[in-house]
């Protein structure tokens, strides 16, 4: 569930570049997603999450996963905003509980568990730009330790009017009315959006597998010169040479300072094809899950959608085996994810 609509085979060929400050995700019909009684209370984030979760499970033979793990930076902001405004407007009177209940960060994971009657491990990670990778790491721990066979993994963040207005006031989001893209961005701030990306993760390779997540690393802070050693350490741990990385998916978002980190990392991988995706997904805390979806697409179809190329450095490769994803936001929450064909 993204600004580019729902996941589908021609997802990237039909993609449009984002050029405004705030872009909402295309909402499909949610009829039949859950009982009408349940659905009437749900925020966009809950609906998007449930929809994407259902879609991810729909591609596999898994009906009830062993665990549900999600990542979200801002959680259920819409309900949180609603309760807060109501508290301000009515001076702490006449408050109703629905938006309070649903303001809890683990609402989406809990709602999916309720819908699927999934009684397994259910945890939500909330750590800014590395929220999704924290959930991914948690997933890897569960699967590699043999505790679980399959995990439903997701990243969700929703646009909430007030929260986004505050982020805009603080300069995080570009001013409304500007028409800038990631590449021709001149003004401060970033184009924001929303989305829900879910993945069915399992220990066994199946006919529908896209690829394999090898490893993930998180780092709270880095200076630009340290980006190289962060990468080197990760590659060494995973016993892989920089030259073996076929493509690197970078989190370029049009913010001058943020993009310096991506330039620095790119320089460490001179033979690797650089790709980007935030011109399609927009920025939000769990948007790097979109990057993982792009990697999965490339591994499965063994082709790179032209819209993802960062520059002209796109050698005519025929196979794409190892892909690296690098993300951070405002110099914090740096993550590396290594995926490969399986």
């Amino acid at each position, binding site marked *: 569930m993204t600004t580019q609509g729902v996941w589908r085979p021609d997802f990237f060929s039909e993609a449009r570049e984002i050029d405004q400050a705030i872009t909402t995700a295309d909402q499909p019909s949610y009829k039949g997603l859950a009982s*009408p*009684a349940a659905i*009437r*209370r749900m925020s966009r984030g809950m609906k998007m999450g449930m929809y994407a979760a259902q879609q991810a499970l729909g591609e596999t033979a898994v009906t009830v996963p062993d665990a549900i793990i999600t990542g979200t930076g801002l959680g259920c902001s819409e309900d949180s905003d609603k309760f807060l405004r109501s508290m301000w407007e009515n001076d702490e*009177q*006449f*408050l*109703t*509980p*629905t938006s309070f*209940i649903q303001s809890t960060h683990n609402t989406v994971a809990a709602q999916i568990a309720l819908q699927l009657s999934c009684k397994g491990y259910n945890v939500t990670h909330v750590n800014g730009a590395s929220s999704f990778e924290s959930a991914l790491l948690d997933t890897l721990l569960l699967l590699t330790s043999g505790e679980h066979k399959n995990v439903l993994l997701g990243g969700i963040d929703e646009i909430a009017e007030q929260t986004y207005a505050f982020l805009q006031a603080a300069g995080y989001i570009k001013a409304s009315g500007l028409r800038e893209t990631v590449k021709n961005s001149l003004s401060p701030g970033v184009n924001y959006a929303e989305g829900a990306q879910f993945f069915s993760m399992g220990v066994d390779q199946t006919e529908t597998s896209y690829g394999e997540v090898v490893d993930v690393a998180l780092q709270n802070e880095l200076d630009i010169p340290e980006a190289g050693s962060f990468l080197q350490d990760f590659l060494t741990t995973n016993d892989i040479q920089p030259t073996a990385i076929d493509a690197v998916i970078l989190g370029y978002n049009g913010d001058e300072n943020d993009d310096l980190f991506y330039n620095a990392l790119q320089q460490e991988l001179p033979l690797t094809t650089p790709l980007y995706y935030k011109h399609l997904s927009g920025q939000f805390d769990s948007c790097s899950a979109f990057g993982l979806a792009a990697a999965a697409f490339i591994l499965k179809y063994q082709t790179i959608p032209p819209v993802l190329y960062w520059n002209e450095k796109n050698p005519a490769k025929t196979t794409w085996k190892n892909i690296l994803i690098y993300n951070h936001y405002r110099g914090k929450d740096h993550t590396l994810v290594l995926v490969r064909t399986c």
Partner: protein
Amino acid sequence: MTALNEELKRKIIDVLNLEDITPTDIKDDEALFDEGLGLDSIDALELIVLMDKDYGIKLTDPKLGKSIFQSIETMVAYISENRTK
């Protein structure tokens, strides 16, 4: 249908976000919870606030709500008798 019945149904549809339901779909003696309209315990808390905000009736005990919120009829009867605004 009295004006209060109609007004109450509209309010319930509004606060509980009952999409695709119109006041005529709710019968006066139909159960609001469970097998009737299908409301649940969270809705009951919303109705308690509605009673307070719109009719000045304070219900602090959720158990008391159960008998009052049986149907539109029982709610209207209780509101008519106890409303302070």
